């Protein structure tokens, strides 16, 4: 059960990628992959981060774990009495933090080094974090493999001898090998067959309960996210547009984008034919997002607004706020939410 204790607090995070043009490779513009994100993550919860391609969810995950550099904002990590600003760490603090936040990747085919056995791949992080003898390392890796429902002996096999689902489980074992507190699952089940997805999701739940972990679950698959998350954040063009408890989001989505997204998903249930809201056009270019509310060119509600209301949507960027007075906050970034 998620607690009220904040473990990660993201404030105004910005991650921009420069676009270089011309002979001298001068910076012509920026891809605003993450454009001002505020997010609090509580210990023990699974936070789902959803959106379509280009929304910035993967970049957000990688910014937290420092695989890409953020250019602005703060990421505060709370550990007991201490607070670390992840964007301003000393080298020792950095090494300590890397242990606490880990990541599971999407592609089972490239997430493991084909030239090394499982033992070979997993022992380097262990060596780095002070596990000195080979025997100790073998024991720890063996335990980890068993924790992901594989056999100890398999640590001496090469990645190509495993199936996609098994490789993904090894990836999870790798993320766990330094005993993290927070695990970022970046599309961790998206590349797997449907029946294997269920196996890996179940495994992730078991591990979370056994070790008291916190998950940030990044995916584009809303059916999976509804099932596995406590809270869900929907992103569009680098910003969070809606953030609520999982059930509340699916029952009463308040942002027009969320509504359209949910209605677009094909449902494997014949008794529910959806009234599909089909969005027009394509996702805009993150280099030059629309003015004001980034969603207004495609927003189905925009068309039915009055002139002054439309002006507001085109000129003013909405903030994430909670107009309802419910016990569980349901935040929306929209001038005229439902």
């Amino acid at each position, binding site marked *: 059960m998620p607690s009220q204790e904040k473990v990660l607090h993201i404030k105004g995070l910005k991650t921009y990628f420069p676009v270089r043009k011309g002979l001298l490779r001068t910076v012509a513009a920026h891809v605003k992959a993450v454009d001002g994100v505020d997010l609090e993550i509580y210990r023990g919860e699974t936070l789902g981060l959803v959106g379509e391609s280009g929304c910035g969810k993967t970049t957000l995950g990688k910014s937290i774990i420092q695989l890409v550099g953020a250019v602005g904002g703060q990421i505060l990590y709370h550990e007991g009495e201490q607070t670390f600003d992840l964007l301003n760490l000393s080298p020792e603090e950095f090494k300590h933090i890397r242990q606490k936040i880990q990541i599971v990747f*999407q592609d089972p085919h490239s997430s493991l080094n084909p030239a090394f056995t499982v033992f070979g791949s997993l022992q380097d992080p262990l060596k780095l974090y002070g596990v000195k003898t080979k025997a100790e390392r073998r024991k720890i890796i063996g335990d980890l493999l068993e924790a992901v429902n594989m056999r100890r002996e398999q640590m001496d096999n090469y990645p190509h001898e495993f199936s996609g689902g098994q490789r993904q489980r090894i990836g999870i074992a790798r993320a766990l090998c330094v005993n993290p507190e927070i695990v970022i699952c970046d599309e961790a089940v998206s590349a797997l067959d449907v029946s294997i997805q269920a196996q890996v999701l179940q495994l992730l739940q078991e591990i979370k309960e056994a070790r008291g972990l916190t998950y940030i679950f990044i995916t584009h698959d809303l059916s999976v996210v509804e099932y596995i998350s406590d809270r869900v954040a929907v992103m569009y063009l680098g910003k969070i547009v809606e953030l609520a408890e999982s059930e509340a989001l699916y029952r009463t989505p308040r942002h027009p984008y969320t509504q359209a997204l949910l209605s677009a998903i094909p449902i494997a249930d014949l008794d529910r034919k959806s009234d599909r809201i089909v969005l027009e056009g394509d996702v805009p270019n993150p280099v030059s997002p629309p003015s004001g509310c980034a969603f207004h060119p495609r927003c189905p509600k925009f068309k039915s607004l009055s002139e002054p209301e439309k002006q507001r949507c085109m000129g003013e960027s909405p903030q994430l706020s909670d107009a309802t007075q419910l016990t569980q906050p349901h935040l929306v970034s929209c001038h005229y939410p439902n």
Partner: protein
Amino acid sequence: MTRRPTRLDKKFDLLREKTEQGTLKAASSNRALNKLASNKLAVLGLAFVTIMILASVFAPLVTQYDPQKVDLRMMLKPPSADHILGTDKIGRDVFARIIYGGRISILVGLGSALGAALIGVSIGAYTGYKGGWWDSTFLRISEVVMSFPQIILVLMLVTILGQSLMNLIIIFTLTGWGSLYRLTRAQMLSLREEEYVQALRAFGLNTFTICFKHILPNALGPIMVNITLSTAMFILQEAGLSFLGLGVPLNIPTWGNILNVAQDLRILQNYWWVWLPSAVTISLFVLAINFVGDGLRDTTDPTMQG
């Protein structure tokens, strides 16, 4: 209208029968070796190269003659029972010179290829992974080195450093590291985006470990092929230089400087056994290495179906 049977059809029928009867041998663990073994040209090439190398190493067992021994009574004798390939201008046994010459030529070829690999791969791996100004700087340096006409560069260095075996290897290494650098860099650029590399970075492993211990083993395939083919190239280069008299000093026999005598038109026309065997040896050896290299490339290329 029925489909015409093709030659593949017969092969397929055989495989299908074997599978249904359960007599198909399970593919042995090393698929790469199997693929190489089935490439007849590569096997032939490998056989020839091995024979030549062994013959050169065990030269005293192959021929009783001393390649340096001058025998003025036996000048320019044609091939006979005594001297299989005859004798040269100052009575030295041609066959012996070729066998012993192989030592130097192969040494130069392989040594330069390995030297160039050492420099090129190290720089390519590190700067390719790091990127940024490291990468740009070395890229420019390699472009300068590679755009110089190689012969001119070699000639200049030979003049400066003087003619000797060691110097030749050094010169070849210094002028030839560019292609392996480029190759390794290209491999690095694609491999560094792989997810396992990102996982290693997420753990905070340092650049050297990631680059040389984890990524480089995956890039070795094309690098090995290039080393093989570079060996052939350097042997040819040495031959060319020695023919001009600018390679290894003339007293040490190499395949190249045996050819040096062919500058003399009289020898070229009338005494074919002095220079032709050496030329043929070089051609066959280089051809054989190329077959092996091509076979290796087909083996390491994951897109080729087998």
